[in-house]
């Protein structure tokens, strides 16, 4: 682009099969001139880091709009319907439903309880924990691609029942009956284990909400889900982001899993998140 001549644009791969960092400036991001490139890199590499880019909330919202449809979700964003960032924190004075975020410490895909999951999340570091609090990502496209043909044949066509309550048991294995009922009220969703995207690429649909592979006994089902998670989170498919203040990270929620690493819940760690509306259903 003519206007981009003087702007910085440097893309560096972080691991062979996942993650790129883009070194650029605010104006380039906010102009939208590179939006198509960013979308393309995101789909190919799963995760993009904009190191210490220091976007304000308004800038992050504007940047999100350049990439797709800004996602509003129930209970998130501004009450008056305006676009807003969502605070990710374990501090209940900032986020009264912080408990729900505890499932985020385990590998997951966002939106497995909906037909069309969000396309991407964009997260900026506003305050850091002194220790821990990294975010792990793994590339579920690459993990599928590198399975042997025999393994692909074995799992292609399998369906998995996902349930939010299963993921809550990860952090609270002995809930009260009332808590369990509340979680169960979110329902279940049957999803393909292998997602065939519009692009014809395929990715694995896994994570903490996976309750049971249809048609398999529970022991066999758990063993398969654990085997595939072990595989998909191997070092060659994974990237761990250690946050610096002002970092912004965007990840393709349809082709990655992610999780937060533990940190002191009183540390004040605060992330501001925006999301892009999903563009394709799990099929």
């Amino acid at each position, binding site marked *: 682009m003519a206007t981009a001549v003087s702007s910085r644009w440097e893309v560096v791969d972080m691991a062979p099969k996942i993650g790129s960092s883009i070194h650029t400036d605010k104006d380039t991001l906010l102009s939208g001139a590179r939006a198509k490139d960013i979308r393309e890199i995101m789909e190919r590499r799963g995760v993009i880091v904009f190191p210490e880019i220091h976007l304000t909330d308004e800038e992050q919202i504007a940047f999100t709009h350049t990439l797709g449809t800004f996602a509003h979700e129930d209970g998130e964003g501004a009450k008056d319907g305006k676009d807003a960032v969502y605070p990710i924190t374990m501090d209940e004075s900032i986020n009264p439903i912080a408990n729900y975020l505890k499932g985020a410490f*385990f*590998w997951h895909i966002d939106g497995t309880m909906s037909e069309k999951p969000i396309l991407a999340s964009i997260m900026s570091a506003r305050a850091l924990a002194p220790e821990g609090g990294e975010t792990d990502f793994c590339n579920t496209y690459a993990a599928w691609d590198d399975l042997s043909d025999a393994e692909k044949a074995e799992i292609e066509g399998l369906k998995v*029942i996902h*349930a939010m*309550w299963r993921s809550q*048991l*990860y*952090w609270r*294995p*002995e*809930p*009260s*009956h009332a808590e*369990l*009922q509340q979680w*169960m009220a979110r329902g*279940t969703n049957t999803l393909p284990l292998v997602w065939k995207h519009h692009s014809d690429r395929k990715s694995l649909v896994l994570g*903490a909400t996976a*309750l*049971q592979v249809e048609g398999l006994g*529970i*022991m066999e089902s*758990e*063993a398969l889900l*654990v*085997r595939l*998670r*072990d595989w998909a989170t191997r070092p060659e498919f994974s990237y761990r982001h250690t946050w610096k203040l002002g970092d912004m990270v965007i990840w393709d929620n349809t082709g990655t899993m992610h999780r937060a690493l533990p940190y002191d819940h009183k540390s004040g760690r605060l992330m501001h998140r925006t999301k892009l509306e999903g563009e394709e259903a799990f099929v």
Partner: protein
Amino acid sequence: MSVATGIRLNAEDIKPGIGSRILNSKEELLSGEIATEIRELLEARGVLVFPQVGFTDDEQIAFTKTLGTYAPEGEGEGVTKITLDVKENPSSAEYLKGSLYWHIDGTRNDVPILASLLSCKVPSPKGTGNTGFANTYAAYEALPEDQKAEIEGLRVAHGPWASLFYYEPEPSLAKLKGYQAIGEAELPLVWKHRSGRKSLILGCTAQRVIDVDALKSAQILVGLREWATSEPFSYSHEWEVGDLVIWDNTGTMHRAEAYDPTCGRMMHRTKLQGEESFE
């Protein structure tokens, strides 16, 4: 026997629904003369506390033998050290993590142990490391009749691999397979004892109710655990050095409450052989 020396059981209730304290001296306990009464009280009350009785290991073994058949653990006679400290207990510290959740011992065996006896050698800091007990006889007996009818006849698959997920929800495949290879056992949800009394068989080894869908199964198991561990049927023992606690493993669940694994907490355990199978 007790007529000869006049030793009488000296006990008081801890709570209406569970637990008694036994205040007899060490010598009276070791005489064996009130063993029958102690056994009866154990079945009736679930948990017996012998405050600061201060048994040595040999005395604990001797006392255990007055109550039934001493069940050896590992090689030879001795007490088993219960600690989360890896230096003291390299092989089992991992396995004991499951003990932080409500459970019954021996759900893999046809005949589970009758009882465990635990002596406190080094307590954890106050407010941590209590042992919780829940009376599964009392919890069953207090259920409304329609709920008793609903759960009668239900069967539950138990296995150590289910409890693995409680403390390690993302195990490696190798670990999961190792735990799964230990196997599962199918047990009744309601245990009909020879005495005619009934108790609930629950705990973190309970993987699923057989022939019931996953949601309903979780609701049943979670609902009954919450009920059985609720205030009227449960007791949390705060340990002092020298305390001995014995619990009826066939009529209670128990758990360790969280404590710092490096604090040095040390318990010595002996067991009584089971006398009755789950069915």
